[in-house]
């Protein structure tokens, strides 16, 4: 595989982008966080925009921005990771089905309800006929798309790949998540998430897309080194699994400068993070992001966006710090995320 560089990035989340620069974060008292609304009409034709659900809007917007950032017109492949897909349209057509007693249905929401609507709409807009795949693997959906990215770059003819993660919130599905105990029963302010000692978390919607290329540019953000997925790990094994993942890349845990962790305030499963925060990474700068942007199946793509920015700007964002340790010149970042104690994803990034 050729070396893979992060050449363009873009994200949409419940926080404004400048929260990274230290802007006061948006504080929500609700346990379901909605992504900020941007001026989608500035980059998407209104005639196209009218039918798009939030996931499609966010993804297309981010895709165009990430490609523009890398000065790439059409990528060789489009890879999307999404855990829930276009859930808003799914709920819409199922609701219509019930209302009409399985009679006449409006076709649009049905057509747009599939998970791969996102990748399809991006391809249609860009007129991109290249490899196009959508990965749905719970909380490692984005990581799965990254594995395909690595495979695609085995082909020397592949120069640029658009890869991203997206998930949207929808009324019924978040209702199920509440019933299932995935969302906290008590109302909590997002910035107090890590002080919580109860089950569940705060759920959100977000999208982050990247132009990854085989060519390093003067404007590149960082190098994407590797990604690993483990469906099941015991808490007692998490440190050794991480060390094994790092070792296959010739890296020791001591070489890691910053760890970005998917802590989500669910006391049942944050013990995975406790284990490494108090263990192998106790002397490292530790960052969290879910107290800012919430939890969803593709939110590790937001951590990827953070990692790329940190490595390019050489700045640890204050709003995301979990401890007081700093790092002046971050060289290597490890992203670790899991959800409900399952589907553990490791991503290794390196500065240029």
């Amino acid at each position, binding site marked *: 595989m050729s070396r893979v560089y992060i050449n363009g990035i873009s994200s949409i989340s419940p926080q404004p982008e400048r929260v990274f620069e230290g802007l006061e974060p948006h504080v929500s008292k609700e346990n379901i966080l909605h992504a900020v609304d941007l001026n989608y009409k500035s980059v998407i034709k*209104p*005639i196209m*925009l*009218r*039918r798009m659900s939030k996931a499609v809007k966010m993804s297309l917007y981010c895709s165009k921005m990430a490609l523009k950032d890398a000065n790439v017109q059409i990528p060789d492949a489009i890879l999307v990771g999404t855990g829930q897909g276009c859930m808003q349209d799914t709920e819409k057509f199922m609701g219509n089905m019930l209302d009409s007693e399985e009679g*006449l*249905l*409006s*076709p*649009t929401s049905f*057509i747009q309800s599939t998970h791969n609507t996102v990748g399809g709409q991006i391809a249609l807009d860009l007129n991109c006929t290249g490899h196009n795949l959508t990965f749905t693997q719970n909380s490692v959906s984005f990581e799965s798309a990254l594995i395909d990215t690595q495979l695609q770059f085995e082909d020397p003819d592949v120069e640029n790949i658009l890869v991203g993660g997206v998930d949207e919130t929808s009324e019924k599905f978040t209702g199920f998540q509440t019933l299932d105990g995935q969302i906290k029963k008590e109302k909590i302010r997002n910035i107090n998430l890590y002080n919580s000692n109860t089950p569940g978390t705060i759920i959100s919607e977000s999208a982050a897309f990247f132009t990854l290329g085989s060519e390093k540019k003067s404007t590149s953000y960082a190098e994407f080194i590797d990604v690993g997925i483990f469906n099941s790990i015991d808490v007692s094994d998490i440190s050794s699994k991480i060390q094994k993942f790092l070792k296959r890349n010739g890296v020791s845990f001591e070489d890691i400068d910053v760890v970005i962790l998917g802590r989500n305030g669910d006391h049942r499963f944050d013990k995975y993070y406790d284990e490494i925060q108090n263990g192998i990474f106790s002397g490292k700068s530790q960052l969290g992001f879910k107290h800012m942007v919430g939890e969803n199946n593709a939110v590790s793509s937001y951590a990827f966006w953070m990692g790329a920015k940190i490595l390019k700007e050489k700045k640890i964002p204050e709003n995301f710090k979990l401890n007081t340790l700093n790092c002046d010149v971050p060289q290597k970042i490890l992203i670790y995320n899991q959800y409900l104690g399952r589907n553990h994803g490791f991503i290794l990034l390196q500065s240029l």
Partner: protein
Amino acid sequence: MSDLHTELKKSIIEQLNLEDMEVSDIENDEHLFGDGLGLDSIDALELIVLLEKDYGIKLTDPNQGKEIFNSVNTIADFIEKNRAK
């Protein structure tokens, strides 16, 4: 403009999510597809459902669609001649 024309325009705007459009923005003889309003094949499917749901008209010959959905005038004419409700 007849009540049916106005009703049709309201339904088209609502059903096809034509945000930012008013009834007065659609001319009775304006082409709905192509260079006119710019509707596409998914919109055509929505219009077929609209005819059946609101007026009890089931299109049996898909080739008729091109002619019927040419403009609000042509749809209104077709509804007047064939409506079941």
